[in-house]
């Protein structure tokens, strides 16, 4: 056997990386991803990558209206991410945000349709917010109760409830059809704007942003400094430790999922009352799943989530622009988003581990040759 053969490279775990270095690694990853994207764009379409990038910018933030649409949708995505974070921190795999948002929206639409114009505005809003949160809470509590009582698998349970939520919406549309025969609800109270969010600071979506940012701060405090947040962290880390500390694990699961579901329901309220003013099976639009990416990518830090959700919505809006401007279909932009995420996620490996390549020529060791 040859003495000088050695594995090609070693992977060594790092103890902890100084913040500037971690930042540099991440920045390098973003740059590299843009270079890789440029290569892919050129190779596949022969277009100038810089033009494509500028189209992205223009699509997402190019005009005041586009900027506000991006902000509005980021806020929605951010709120769902905030909502599911306590559950995920507790290692409760809630992939039912989609359904919880939908039933929240459904409850809002119901109150809006039947109550709009029939009661004072303040009461209408209180009722919409309360009902949406209650609906979401119930949708979150069902799987939590089964998990706490029978230890059922919450992943499948929450996923299945999404479809139940969709069917409920489909069912309701039959009653609320407008115009008749369209099989859609149409814009609710288009003329009177009953139950629509009012402008705030002269911005149509000002209220959305204000609500979501306040919840961001509250969630940060809740997770980091409250007794509840502490209990969630302990249960998530180890149920044995939680029981050892005298924590009632079932109670924490129920309480946390009630909160998580209620916030998802509240998102449904903000979407219906503050954005779309209608309800359909695509009201949640897959954002319940995207939010999981936001939450994990941010390592459960609410403030990082602001950036991540903005980035994802930015990419989505830009994609629509390049699709129309360059006649590329939207899958092309999925490829680009995928490449960028690959680099951003992949760089975590280099933050946690150090890779040292094979050294050429081994050092002589004292007393190597033995007589």
């Amino acid at each position, binding site marked *: 056997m040859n003495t000088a053969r050695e594995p090609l490279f070693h992977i060594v775990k790092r103890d902890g990386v100084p913040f500037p270095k971690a930042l540099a690694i991440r920045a390098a990853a973003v740059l590299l991803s843009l270079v890789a994207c440029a290569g892919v764009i050129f190779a596949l379409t022969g277009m100038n990558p810089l033009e494509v990038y500028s189209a992205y910018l223009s699509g997402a933030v190019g005009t005041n209206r586009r900027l506000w649409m991006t902000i509005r949708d980021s806020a929605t995505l951010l709120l769902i991410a905030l909502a599911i974070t306590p559950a995920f921190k507790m290692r409760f795999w809630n992939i039912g945000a989609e359904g919880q948002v939908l039933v929240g929206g459904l409850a809002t639409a119901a109150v809006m349709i039947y109550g709009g114009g029939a009661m004072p505005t303040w009461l209408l809003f209180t009722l919409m917010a309360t009902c949406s949160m209650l609906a979401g809470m119930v949708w979150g509590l069902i799987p939590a109760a089964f998990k706490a009582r029978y230890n059922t698998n919450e992943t499948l349970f929450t996923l299945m409830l999404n479809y139940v939520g969709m069917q409920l919406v489909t069912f309701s549309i039959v009653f609320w059809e407008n115009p008749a025969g369209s099989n859609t609800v149409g814009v609710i109270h288009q003329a009177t704007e009953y139950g629509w969010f009012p402008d705030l600071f002269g911005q149509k979506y000002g209220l959305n942003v204000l609500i979501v940012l306040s919840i961001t701060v509250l969630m940060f405090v809740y997770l980091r*400094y409250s*007794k509840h947040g502490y209990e969630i*962290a302990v249960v998530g880390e*180890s149920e044995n430790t939680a029981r050892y500390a005298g924590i009632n694990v079932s109670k924490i699961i129920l309480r946390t999922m009630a909160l998580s579901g209620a916030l998802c329901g509240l998102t449904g309220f903000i979407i219906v009352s503050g954005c779309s003013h209608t309800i359909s099976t695509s009201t949640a639009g897959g954002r319940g799943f995207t939010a999981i990416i936001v939450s994990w990518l941010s390592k459960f830090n609410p403030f990082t989530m602001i950036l991540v959700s903005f980035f994802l919505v930015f990419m989505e809006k830009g994609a629509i622009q390049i699709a129309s401007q360059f006649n590329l279909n939207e899958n092309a932009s999925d490829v680009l988003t995928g490449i960028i995420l690959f680099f951003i996620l992949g760089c975590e490996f280099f933050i946690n581990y150090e890779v040292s390549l094979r050294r050429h020529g081994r050092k002589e060791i004292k007393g190597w040759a033995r007589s």
Partner: protein
Amino acid sequence: MEKKIAVEMRGVTKRFGSVIANENVCLDVRRGEILSVLGENGSGKTTLMNMLSGIYFPDEGQIFIEDRPVTIRSPRDAFELGIGMIHQHFKLVDVFTAAENIALGLPGPMRLSLNEVRRKIMDLANKYGFEIDVNQKVYDMSVSQKQTVEILKVLYRGAKILILDEPTAVLTPQETERLFRILRNMREDGKAIVIITHKLAEVLALSDRVSVLRKGHSVGTVQTAGATVQSLTELMVGKRVTLDIERPDPVRPERRLDVKDLTCVNAEGITTLDHAAFTARSGEILGIAGVAGSGQKELLEAIAGLQPTTEGSVTFYPKQGDPVDTTHMNAGAIDKLGIRLAFVPEDRLGMGLVGSMDITENMMLRTYREGHSFLTDKRGPRKLAERIVQQLEVVTSGVSSPVRRMSGGNVQKVLVGREIASAPSVLMVAYPVRGLDINSSYTIYHLLNEQKVKGSAVICVGEDLDVLLALCDRIMVLCAGKVTGIVDARTATKEEIGLLMTHTEGVIEEGEAG
């Protein structure tokens, strides 16, 4: 004539990030020799041996087998060179028989002749004195039988160099003796044997030479014949240490805890604790001995309210006030009653502490509920954390670094420190010094004694009988979930306890038990 060198490691260095596990270590083993590799936990013994068995690759240095330089890149390379390692945690397939496990993964013809395999195993067993039933399934085996299978597995593959990682940690004194006889037979046969250990008595009884590691460096190799416990300890620790455990006499013992007929049945319907009964008194350390898995864990967890019980009762006797029956209560309910029960569980990071949290947050685990505020109060816990770090000399980069990053000894100091901070009336500790170096172990013994003198009833589950005999006032022995005896630690012998550890019928009462 000097025996032929089987393996030599020269100038071997291995780093993990900034941590140096081994630096410039030199070591050689000869044929027909038993070499002990001695060192405290974290001194790099296992890392060093893992480089021989192909699990790690050295950053620097060279390994020679019979004077030939070799490169070992995988366990397969190690096998081809005749190196076999028996790990601390066995790697066997439960539903296979001994013979099937031994034949598993070996190259050979398509049709495997198990009869041939069995015959070869029996030859090996007879040659070295193993007792084995080749047709027994692994799940039916005791820990010592599983170890036998592991050793035969590497012998079957033709290993000439055997490395055993802490082989006696899971054995009773009698089983240890049997293992030693087998190892001596192998030595006569010309095998080179390395055993990794930190038990000095075993080193002296078994090996020909001892290589001592300290903080990743080799600090010397000595002939066992000229060594003593004291001299080896000093090599290992690097300074003079006193090896006596003090044992103050109990002062005015009072009943603190009464356990009657306590029985636990696990999820598979197996009785893990069988009508256990005993009394713990203040100012006294009650040791609990037994082979691993004899019901120690279940007993402590049942008392702490973490394990459902099917029969029996648990009663606490506080210093003032009436006795409290806590049978069937969970940990939270017991805590609410104001019973000062402290518990240092066996699984420190999986039960006693939260690994990803820092010391301060781990201090909060017991007290975070206090006060009416919705938010947590971190000032008190931080003060406690700082006090523990200072008083128990915890080595850490600060009270805000995750406890998972700390070494085993420091983790244990944090856990014990928190548990005794509440001035417990009953203190239960499970394997309190497992994985700890000598200095840390003595710190823990000292803390237990301190609690005893302060009037706690201390219950200590241990694995090292020498230590239990030196530290405790009484020792209760468990075997297969039953209490087989409670003996006076001042008069009992190791052999007596060893017998009780394997004794299944009847209860031997001695001294003033009960």
